[in-house]
């Protein structure tokens, strides 16, 4: 088996050392190491492979937008070694059969570890629990359950789901969106929506569900994860819940760290996303929450769509944007270059913590001898313009087209094998 030596990189942005990868593990860390293939990492940071807790791979059902293979390629290109495939496929991943199918497709693609997320309720309809235990016991060993795209709005169903998954250390990942407050909603409710005449999506529609759910989690002693938190009020509620010892974790997306709702003034549906882009005060609050650990992780909510679903008027367009390939550059731009976070904290928010929440024991491990070689080498100093047509995802709906973003993934190693070298897929 070929051995690889990553030379001169800064491990977690701290000490500079070489790293020898052999037979799937980190064999040695030190100076002047030798291997079959040399990856020059001078000036780069070396991080544990990124783990995404929130990825839409669209297969089965919407292979025109993304497949497990094309999504895995985009993930590898972005420095990920593990993604959690959301359940809102067609058919919905609400049975052992579907989650095992996705899991197998991930193994066949072989570029990242694909961990299927199971639906909480049958067909995402919010009425009857899906067979959560069967999905947990399946080959896919599901631990994260979510109706993402829809909110588990019924408080009694949510309570039971939170309780039920305690039996196998599962977690409910809630898409917090009060449905009655967001009927036909198109964008954040605020000054911009009032001007544009687009139906508003009030912050309270997210916050009310989060407030309810942290109290439910406390009551039943269960683990709750909050998807794509987007408002300042949500950060406050999570902070309050954690102070009370409630077992809650939360994620923020790169795009909610980066954009404000002002970009919607273009009426370009590339910016149409659920939850919607919020105000500058919200962006500031989620950045602060991520830095101080109130928000545990960054998750992409990578949501590919074919061009016809975005090349239309706003209200006819689909919600969602791609994010796997740009995530690390956005975190660099919004958190590291602003000195809000260190690279060690980035490793925590994008690898260690998400692996822990998802109970993925092969991922999110320290860069230490003997650990599985899931590694990303990132050059934080190059400036690159995003060209949507160059994306390796099955879709082109990146909102960063035309933006110059800081940083580039130089190499990704998944279980000791390179998936990206010299910034290209292997």
């Amino acid at each position, binding site marked *: 088996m070929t051995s690889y030596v990553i030379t001169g990189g800064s491990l977690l942005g701290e000490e500079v050392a070489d790293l020898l990868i052999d037979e799937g593990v980190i064999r040695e860390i030190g100076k002047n190491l030798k291997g079959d293939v040399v990856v020059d990492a001078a000036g780069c940071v070396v991080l544990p492979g990124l783990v995404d807790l929130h990825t839409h791979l669209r297969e089965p059902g919407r292979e025109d937008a993304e497949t497990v293979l094309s999504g895995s390629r985009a993930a590898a290109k972005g420095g990920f070694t593990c993604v959690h495939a959301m359940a809102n496929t067609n058919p919905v991943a609400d049975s052992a059969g579907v989650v095992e199918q996705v899991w197998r497709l991930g193994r066949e693609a072989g570029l990242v570890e694909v961990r299927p997320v199971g639906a909480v309720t049958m067909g995402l309809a919010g009425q009857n629990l899906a067979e959560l235990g069967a999905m947990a016991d399946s080959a896919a060993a599901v631990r994260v359950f979510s109706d993402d795209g829809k909110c588990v709005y019924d408080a009694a169903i949510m309570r039971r789901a939170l309780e039920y998954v305690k039996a196998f250390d599962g977690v409910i990942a809630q898409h917090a969106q009060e449905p009655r407050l967001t009927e036909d909603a198109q964008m954040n409710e605020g*000054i911009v*929506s009032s001007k544009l*005449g687009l139906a508003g999506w009030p912050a309270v529609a997210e916050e009310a569900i989060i407030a309810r759910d942290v109290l439910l989690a406390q009551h039943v002693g269960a683990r709750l994860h909050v998807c794509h938190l987007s408002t300042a009020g949500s950060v406050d509620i999570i902070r309050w819940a954690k102070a009370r010892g409630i077992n809650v974790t939360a994620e923020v997306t790169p795009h909610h760290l980066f954009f404000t709702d002002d970009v919607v003034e273009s009426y370009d549906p590339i910016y149409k996303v659920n939850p919607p882009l919020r105000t500058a005060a919200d962006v500031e609050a989620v950045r602060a929450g991520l830095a101080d650990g109130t928000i545990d992780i960054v998750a992409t909510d990578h949501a590919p769509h074919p061009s016809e679903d975005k090349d*239309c008027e*706003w209200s006819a367009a689909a919600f969602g944007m791609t994010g796997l390939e740009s995530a690390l550059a956005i975190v660099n731009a919004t958190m590291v270059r602003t000195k809000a976070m260190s690279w060690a904290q980035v490793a925590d928010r994008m690898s260690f913590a998400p692996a822990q929440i998802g109970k993925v024991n092969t991922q999110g491990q320290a860069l230490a001898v003997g650990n599985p070689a899931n590694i990303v080498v990132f050059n934080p100093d190059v400036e690159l313009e995003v060209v949507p047509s160059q994306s390796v995802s099955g879709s082109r709906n990146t909102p960063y087209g035309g933006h110059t973003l800081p940083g580039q993934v130089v190499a990704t190693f998944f279980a000791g094998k390179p998936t990206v070298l010299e910034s290209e897929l292997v």
Partner: protein
Amino acid sequence: MKHLLSATDLTRDSAITILDTASQLAAATAQGVGKLPPLRGRTVVNLFYEDSTRTRTSFEAAAKRLSADVINFSAKGSSVSKGESLKDTALTLEAMGADAVVIRHHSSGAPHRLANSGWISGGVVNAGDGTHEHPTQALLDAYTLRRHLRDNNGDLSGVKVAIVGDVLHSRVARSNAILLQTLGASVRLVGPPTLLPFGVETWGCEVSYDLDGALDDVDAVMMLRVQRERMNAAYFPSAHEYSNRYGLNSARAARMPEHAIVMHPGPMNRGMEITADVADSKRSVIVEQVSNGVSVRMAVLYLLLGGTEGTA
């Protein structure tokens, strides 16, 4: 001016140019010259995704009086209703050689997409998009106000206008709030709190929940159409309560200064936001608004197309 998408596209001067041009075109039409020649050989497409006979016929009459060729492309009975995308329709219109597209669409921002996505090269006129804007309605309202209150001259400095009703869902209110202030008028928005948009305090208008207290000092009252179905979504309890609190009846009209006029963009819900006696009273200019609409739309098409020969 390449497009007219929003009242924010208009400066004080460009708006006054449109109003002055409208009154010249109205005078020429009144002299019975018949068709005026300036848009001969130009093609104007009326692309209507919503039923609105009054707005469509107004644009059609305006274009024809300027000798343009008019194509009515309505959503009913065409490929549009069979799910053809706005983009594909736009490409069709481009192939047909549309010099201007007048678009009415149920989706806010659709005219912006049409104008800015590279699908067509001609000008775009927003004839009402979702709950966003209806700039030619605001222009015709400004024209009407100027005729009655400023001797058809200059701007609207010092004019006080109350806009009453469902501001939240009204594209007419949005465009008027912008344009009337651009022209120097002051605007008071009146309605139940549920029908005033979140963030309305940033519009530069006075806001009131009390119609009775909002009439004493106005030069004009503009009543907005209120759909009865709104009460099903709990915006207000009943049509009865709405008209009691926010309808313009003769008792309320009597509180207005003698010179003040009553406006309505139509179509009216008589008995809901306005009573029949007020709608038909001497101070009502509702019928005149319709004829002013044609003049203003002639001016918009003329200025959009007349001066761009060879560059479109």
